[in-house]
């Protein structure tokens, strides 16, 4: 079980959180089919540092972004 650093509540156990997928995916306003498909479905899914969103659902309720290495599963500071 991960220990997740909530920017508001500090380190808290993973079961209080919900992972909300890759961060930084901009919702396009006027998009062609390709751009819209990319927004909907294409993900970097990296073997390495991953910017991802979490929500502290059973805590402060806030969404925030963290960087985690997907091999070590360790949280790291933003690149």
């Amino acid at each position, binding site marked *: 079980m991960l220990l997740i650093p909530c920017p508001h509540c500090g380190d808290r156990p993973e079961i209080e959180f919900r992972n909300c997928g890759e961060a930084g995916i901009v919702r396009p306003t006027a998009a062609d089919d390709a751009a819209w498909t990319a927004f909907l479905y294409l993900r970097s899914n990296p073997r390495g540092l991953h910017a991802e969103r979490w929500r502290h659902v059973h805590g402060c309720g806030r*969404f925030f972004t963290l960087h985690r290495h997907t091999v070590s599963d360790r949280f790291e500071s933003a690149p």
Partner: protein
Amino acid sequence: MSRLPTGGRIDRSRPLQFSFDGRQLEGFAGDTLASALLANGVTVVGRGTKYHRPRGILTAGPEEPNALVEIDRGGGRREPNTRATMQPLFDGLVARSQNRFPSLRFDAAALAGLAAPLLPAGFYYKTFLSPRGWHHLWEPVLRRLAGLGRAPDAPDPDRYANRYAHCDVLVVGAGPAGLAAALAAAETGERVILCDEQAEPGGWLLSDPQESIDGQPAWTWLDDAVATLRAHPRVRVLTSTTAFHYGLQNFLALAEILPEGSRLRERLWQIRAKRVVLATGAIERKLLFHGNDRPGAMFASAARTWLNRYAVLPGRRAVLAASHDSGWQSVFQLQDAGAEIAAIVDWRAAPPPPLLEEAARRGIEVLAGHGVTALPDGMLAMPRAADGTLIRNRTRTLFCDLVLMAGGWTPTVHLFSQSRGRLRWDDAADAFLPGEPAQNVVCIGACRGTDDLAACIAEGQAAGAGTSLPPRVQRAGGLAVRAAVTGADGRSFVDPQNDVTADDIRLAVREGFRSIEHVKRYTTTGMATDQGKIANMVGLAVVADTLERAIPEVGITTFRGPYTPVSFGTLAGRHRGVLFEPIRTPPLHDWAAAQGAVFEPVGLWQRARYFPRPGEDMQAAVARECRAVRGAAGIFDASTLGKIEVVGPDATTFLERIYVNALANLAPGRCRYALLLREDGCIADDGIIGRLAADRFHVTTTTGGAASVLHMMEDYLQTEWPDLRVWLTSTTEHWGVIAVQGPRSGEVIAPLVEGIDLAALPPMGVACCTVAGIGARLFSVGFTGERGFEINVPAGHAPAVWQAVLQAGAPHGITPYGTEAMHVLRAERGYIIVGQETDGTVTPDDVGLGRLIGKKKADFIGKRSLDRPDMRTTGRRQLVGLLPIDATVPEEGAQLVIAPGSATPLGHITSAYASPTLGRPIALGLLQSGRVRIGTSVFALGSTGTAAPVKVVSPMFTQPAGEGENG
């Protein structure tokens, strides 16, 4: 009896009766089942899984592969595969051997041993090739032969608990190193947890009282250490507690087995530690020789444990088969305790002189540079040639009933490896040792390859204090394991439980299974219940030897949790029956239950499905309830609907972006049916949006969608549109919702409503008022196609208001109805249920709700996706009504086809009911190009294969009475 008259840590004042395979035996408090069996001279305890050869107790610890027994406490408390070495003896314990038929002494399946030449590693892959031959003939036979004990056949009545804990230092292993670490950590004032898998702390010290620490006898030091720790307010000592899982960020899980007779059987500890100290010790290695699996062959260290800790002499005449110094001491102690020593057979040509001198002094014959092979009643010793094979023409016969094996030590690095720390091969230690850690963890003592007691203590003190460790100290040595297996007899057992021999491993390598992972899987080495604690290093050495590679080049298989097996019950904890998951009930549940309602689960909720009267089945009850609603008035508990209060100056903007509907023009005091899409354009949820004030909305969601809709809204609010000044508050549980529906609903509630002019409340209106004296939000909406109201009152007042409405409605024939009637009523009107008419692939247009979309809106969730080619294509499945021609209710899920023989599905029936209003069955379905097919017929193909014709009609079977507009 081989119990010694004195000594050991057993309590001779507390004799305990137990039975094994029906034999009544006696042991003492402090015994394990294994020590008590040995004390009673029981040597055969189990059978190997493949050849069913008899097996004895090999070890004194959790790594035991042979002495697995069934423990039966009666009823559902019978369990298989319990390690006799880890089972504390208790009075009345009933144990049985396993995997033998008809008895342990005579096992018919041992005939498999005769067929051994036909059963090499992986034999089953090479034969039984025809599908019928395998599955029908051979598989059942092989299955019956495999497996160990019997699964229980009654539900387990015992209780299991869970505990989360935090500490500064978690010390795993209460041997000398771990105890020293815990003592040192306690001195710093930190929060310390010390756990050990054994029932008693002490680790190897319990087996070695001759040692001394700080000038004190080992057991005196031990008693003091344990007493100090137990008395310390910041230290928790957990015995019979195995650390079995090492997760990320120093999260460890421990399984505690509570003493026999406790209220709880086991407890799961989930611990987050700032630092972890692993003092998990080391496990002895076996040697490979023919007969190394026979009863009476055991680890030299185990013999010492039997002798010192349990005062049991495990045999009368012993042979030591050693490639390592550490076994010699065991033999000397056995001799002191009265055993005869037939000989010490050491693989090495030149064991250390001090050992040779001591043996000579004791008159023990030493056969250096020799190996052994089995005789029916002893061992045959022979010189080992340079290639490791035995030189058969110079033999020495050694009669014995005990063969001690000492092949060196494997540090218990399982948890360290699970923590994702790197292991590194160390030639001097002849083992993989902990290398670079991935977390805040240190390994000390035998787990680090240190075998000197003083050094173990020193390492513990450093680790406990958080200072850097002194260098590793290793005193004993031996022949490298790779050299020790060279030339080993092919029939030697590497993995005694899975009956894997040296030849099996060599065969696997020959057949191209070169990766150690392939060898493991092809031969099943290390896959037995000890998870390779016995077999892995030796098996690895055989692979390395066969491939002529160094051990670290071959690598090791992955250490996985649990460290030792953990019962399902411990992991499931208290989450069973009603505690498995919360059962949520709405505020009127008790009333419904008292009425004899039949309930249905919807997510975590229990909802009243119908209210049968005496003699009524579901259909009759539902028909009556429906007729009441259509004819007069019905009352329904709608409290489970999700409710969200949306408040703030930008609330309208926000909701316009979330829902497909135009909402800017929704006046305060009015409400609207609204659809919510996912970004892919498919319907996610629906509900009513009521505007209470310019900046305040009361939004409802489906029962199942409550949490996810709120989460989705928060996501957009916080991530996409953080500039909007809006707040979302769940009010699902605050409001009890009483739906009163039917032509007379207005008359029913009129006398109860105060504060507004009810007559002036338009359909799709919302007002704050009081109902039966309780502050309420009154919605004039219906999901039935009738004039209707939904009265929202604070949940605690809902039962009283419900009663008041019932009373007021009695003269009008008000009838409670459940979810089933609700479903029928809405279907008659063609209203969809999200999750039934929709399944995550359905657009608003598909269900005929395209008109809800605010045409002038620049954006809303999912808008852009509706423009994708396949969302606009013709031939999508569309919601239609279906009228069965033969007047039977079709099956929900039935497939729609153009003609009975057609194999092309055109859609399916989403809902089907007997409609009391229409007096005939009706159905809703999604049908390819459904709207243009209205007026035609298609066929509904059910699960039994019968195709029935259905007429395609508009989904609106009945026209709304009032303007109780849903869509």
